[in-house]
């Protein structure tokens, strides 16, 4: 019983002392509590902020710690071994599939980006358009919910009105879709939709629910390096979803919602995406659009966005920048 009281007192003292810092965070504190003991110094120091060189042997992705708060409780005698094991198993179940890390995400997204160029017309080689789409895209990405990764934007050389996002920050818009747009706010809305797929990791979520990763507890570069088939299967599965079957309808609606939000945050008129959907729904070229065949109908998306508009106030004077759009794009397509 004394050990229990000691354990609780220790927790309370540390937590209360942490109150003096306004930026105290429980999860950070718990990380500190559960930090493994420092490893013996090696001859070469590792910089934690840099990715491991590709040619070095991969370290195992995770190690099952005997520590953790539960482990600490066990060592202090608060929990007996049986209770501790039950608690660890419960946590383990909740941890069943580790989130896919950025390095793995970029490997998957980069591979899919190559496929986008391969399947949908290759790059539209025009530096003015590339610069402009990057300016609009990066502006919107910077106010998104995941601004810390690098976003890359490219124009595809196809008349079909298409737009794609692949994990890790790759966004594509076709020359055909640019021809349909009337202003920069619409472009910001479309790019916002694609950025939202990346910020909310829609393709990765779908992959994690799919058959290729079922039974795996996590996905690592080491595992993909060792098993070429695994990477092939992953790319085939995501490719099928993104380019043929389409993401779940709800994920598309979510991307519309956040796409509109991100454009609004950057100061664009929030109706840009909605107005583009109206144009797309009436377009003669809609039949050739993957953006259309893999998505819910423009009419249903349009209706959803109308329902979301009341939350935005005072945007009537927000810019749509049709003059800048036309001046920049005119003569380039």
């Amino acid at each position: 019983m004394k050990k229990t009281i000691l354990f609780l007192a220790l927790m309370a003292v540390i937590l209360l002392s942490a109150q003096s810092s306004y930026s105290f965070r429980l999860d950070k504190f718990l990380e500190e509590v559960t930090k493994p003991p420092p490893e013996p110094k090696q001859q070469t120091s590792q910089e934690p902020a840099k990715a491991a060189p590709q040619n070095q042997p991969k370290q195992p992705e995770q190690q099952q710690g005997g520590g953790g708060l539960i482990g600490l409780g066990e060592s202090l005698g608060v929990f007996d071994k049986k209770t501790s094991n039950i608690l660890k198993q419960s946590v383990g179940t909740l941890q069943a599939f580790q989130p896919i890390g950025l390095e793995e995400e970029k490997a998957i997204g980069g591979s899919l980006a190559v496929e986008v160029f391969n399947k949908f017309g290759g790059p539209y080689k025009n530096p003015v358009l590339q610069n402009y789409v990057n300016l609009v895209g990066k502006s919107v990405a910077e106010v998104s919910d995941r601004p810390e990764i690098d976003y890359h934007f490219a124009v595809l050389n196809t008349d079909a009105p298409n737009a794609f996002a692949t994990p890790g920050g790759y966004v594509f818009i076709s020359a055909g879709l640019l021809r349909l747009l009337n202003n920069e706010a619409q472009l910001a809305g479309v790019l916002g939709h694609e950025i939202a797929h990346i910020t909310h990791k829609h393709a990765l979520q779908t992959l994690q629910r799919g058959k290729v990763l079922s039974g795996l507890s996590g996905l690592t570069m080491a595992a993909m390096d060792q098993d070429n088939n695994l990477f092939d299967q992953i790319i085939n599965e995501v490719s099928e979803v993104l380019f043929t079957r389409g993401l779940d309808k709800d994920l598309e609606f979510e991307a519309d919602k956040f796409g509109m939000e991100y454009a609004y945050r950057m100061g664009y008129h929030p109706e840009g995406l909605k107005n583009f959907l109206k144009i797309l729904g009436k377009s003669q070229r809609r039949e050739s659009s993957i953006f259309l065949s893999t998505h819910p109908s423009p009419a249903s998306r349009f209706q959803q966005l109308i329902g979301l508009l009341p939350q935005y106030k005072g945007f009537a004077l927000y810019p749509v920048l049709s003059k800048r759009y036309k001046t920049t794009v005119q003569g380039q397509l």
Partner: protein
Amino acid sequence: MTSNNTISRRSPLLIPLLTLLLFGLGFASKISAQTLYVKKSGTKLQASESARSQVLTTLNQGTPVQVVKKGKRFYQVSAGGKTGWVFKFRLSATAPQKSGGDAGLLGALGGRQKIAAKEASSGSSIRGLSPIAEKHAKKKGISETDIKAVKQMEAFRIDPKELDKFLKEGKLGEYGQ
């Protein structure tokens, strides 16, 4: 009392109490002051509630700032001993995430620690098409042109000054209404 005694035998309320204590204190600390975090390095801390005002300093990604006052599009914040105004959408309620990982509550409870490089990688530190992606493309017979197109897409950079000018001309971001 033997060492085999379980916590539940000693006090069935101990686990709920411990949980309540941990969460209660954590919650109390969060509502005592609003701390926000800078989304991206280079975020400007300005002298007044306007993008055209003097830039006091630039803030790095993840810098915690204390909110002093909330305006329509700018928040007055203090950071590193300076007080100024930041465009509110360049701030986030949560610190920018490291990649992936479960270093949060579950990780802490289970003592599961990530040790691979990806844990420490920030978004901008992983650059270039992954070798595994390139190998996959070549195996599928995808042309070098398409692989090169992705590499060019990744290498394309926008000068922050050009981006700032673009926003200013369009009355966007901090230059907006």
